[in-house]
């Protein structure tokens, strides 16, 4: 059993991902367990990054996976891969928890990310390294702006206020950082 992580796991073909989701929709617990083994590290990692609290992160992992169990059809596997979608969903849930409020973003409010080439050509491990490498190569203020927006849930106006930077500068920093990540996804 690949206990709770797929860091060293093999990449999951898109067809198998779709197959597991379909079986999960039919109530197959073994398929759901396989999805958990494949993606729990991702969900936990994002939740921990946002919340910085192991207990709260575990609750978010449980929430995200049980939502997936109850309603796996909300993710449209024809339009993309599960991993980035789960990352965004988890980030939103963790931020909701951080703000101690009811979930604001419904599951179907997040589009399935398009199937960019990394999904077909490289596993998540390699892709994660590429993302980290891309982030380390951009100016620190760009990276910080993106991380404040994504992991701390700050609006760009709030970032401008906190960093004492003009709003237009913050927007261009976030945009540049996202473009750098997007570029890293392409071969």
């Amino acid at each position, binding site marked *: 059993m690949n206990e709770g992580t797929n860091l060293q796991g093999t990449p999951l073909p898109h067809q198998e991902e779709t197959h597991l989701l379909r079986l999960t929709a039919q109530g197959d617990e073994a398929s759901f367990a396989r999805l958990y083994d494949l993606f729990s590290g991702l969900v*936990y990692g994002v939740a921990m990054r946002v919340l910085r609290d*192991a207990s709260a992160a575990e609750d978010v992992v449980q929430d995200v996976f049980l939502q997936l169990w109850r309603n796996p059809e909300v993710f449209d596997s024809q339009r993309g891969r599960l991993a980035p979608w789960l990352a965004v969903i988890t980030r939103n849930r963790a931020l909701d928890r951080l703000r101690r409020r009811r979930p604001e973003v419904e599951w179907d409010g997040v589009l399935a990310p*398009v199937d960019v080439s990394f999904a077909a050509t490289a596993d998540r491990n390699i892709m994660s390294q590429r993302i980290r490498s891309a982030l380390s190569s951009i100016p620190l203020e760009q990276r910080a702006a993106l991380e404040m927006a994504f992991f701390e849930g700050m609006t760009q106006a709030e970032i401008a206020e906190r960093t004492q930077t003009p709003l237009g500068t913050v927007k261009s920093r976030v945009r540049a950082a996202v473009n750098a990540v*997007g570029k890293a996804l392409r071969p």
Partner: protein
Amino acid sequence: MNHLSQDELLAYALGESLPEAAAHLRSCEQCNAELASHYASLGALGMSEESAAPAHLRGRILGSLSREQTRPSQFARQSSSQSASQSTTPRRWSLIPSWIPTFAAALLLIAVGLLWRDDLAQRRRLHDELAQLQQPEVQADLLRRALAAPDAQQFSLLPASFHPVMQGKAIYRAQQQQVIFIGSHFAAAPAGKAYELWLLPSSGAAPIAAGVFQPDAAGNVSLVVPRLLAATDPKGFAITIEADSGSDKPTSAIILAGLKSQG
């Protein structure tokens, strides 16, 4: 049609409230495609944070599936739709063939069989749940939650001749950097003061603050620190009395200490 700017799309993808953008996205495929590419980048950013989930979490989540409302299987859905499409108009009793009573008896037997199967499935599920609860990592999780629960009551069992003294036990989980401290017979801290637990690194480095606490009215302490900020191998733990807001370093004498070799 005026499409959304990249900044608007990005702000929307990051969760900012933009009602006009939301309205536009309901009908614009082009902007939706660009939005999806931003989600892909943000999702990838999240994926770069991947780290192993605690082992006990798997049992907790998979164990809770049986408590979820059972979703109808595709087989069940197909069966129900087939039976609906195959239903016929009621027949008159005079035309009921003689095999009907036999058929009804067979149906009854099937129903009993199904009930027995449901009961068996339920018992299996309970058995699985119990087995799940007996797994060490699940038990550890239950223990941690029980210790942190506000309604938990603690009882210390000691020899009848024992004169109670302040004591405690610290449990450290290195991988999770998690500390659990259970104590008893603690006197109330002086006004404006609190007890502070310190991790003593085996390297000899300065003690690391591991939590500030006040005993309850009965002198009991249950402290759970989900994750220490610094990871280190401890040689032991110690307690001092500090300001009730906590201190970065010990400023008073150690009143309780335990080293690894002392168990």
